[in-house]
């Protein structure tokens, strides 16, 4: 179990993409597959911690579950 590690990678990726698109990231949509080896609740918990003191602090994490092995950043909600 390494959800904090995954959350940190997610925050880094979301921040990078947010920078590129411009505007404030208010929500991060992810897809977590059953076989990805990542627990939804643990990820949500870790996400809050991982966001602290970053440009996306306070953003909401929206998790979509699937059957496969996905561990994907699907979309960002951006306030211009």
């Amino acid at each position, binding site marked *: 179990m*390494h959800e904090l590690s995954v959350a940190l990678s997610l925050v880094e*990726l979301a921040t990078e993409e947010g920078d590129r698109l411009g505007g404030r990231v208010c929500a991060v949509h992810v897809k977590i597959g059953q*076989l*990805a080896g990542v627990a939804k609740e643990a990820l949500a918990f870790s996400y809050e911690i991982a966001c602290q003191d970053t440009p996306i602090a306070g953003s909401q994490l929206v998790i979509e579950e699937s059957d496969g092995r996905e*561990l*994907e*950043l*699907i979309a*960002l909600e*951006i306030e211009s």
Partner: protein
Amino acid sequence: MTMAPRLVEVRQNILKQNDIVARALRSRFDETGVRVVSMVSSPGAGKTALLERMLTELHTRYRVAALVGDLATENDAARLARSGAAVRQITTGTICHLEAAMVQHALDGWALDQLDFLFIENVGNLVCPASYDLGEHLRCVMVSVTEGEDKPLKYPTIFNTADIAVITKIDLAGAVEFNRDAMERNIQAVRPGMRTVAVSAKTGEGIGELVTLL
């Protein structure tokens, strides 16, 4: 007036950074002609013992080296170095798996074109390593005769990301009434067509066969 937030599609693998580094490592390994084999298993399945045996045997015929990952201590590296091969320890601290960046960092200063084989022993863990490509050419998942024949069914993801299954401590099979057929069936159920080999680091059984599969 505040505008409603816009939803922008991204569709990127969260661990894409690891994948990028892993792919670059794989290219580098291909260019320098070194065959890279990684080993994953539960703690205590016998990765280090097997690797020690293999390094000792291969060292006379090939140029071999190894990286070994643990949360703490350099014990495994010291033990493996007895084989005469070049060995480096990666201590991860609290991280439960090796990542491509750790491998890349650990290879600093090694001339890969002077190596035939590089073995990477992962942290003992059948869960997390499945998510992290290390750039290897071949991934061996190891399961010992003492772990229960249904182990593959309990950890399908790692078996799916591996290329060969190595059943270890086969010398203990009798003592624990190991059911080889059941284990093979379960491995095939999770990963049809998976190549398996049974070994004993202690007696040397199966080592020759394993080497030909590398």
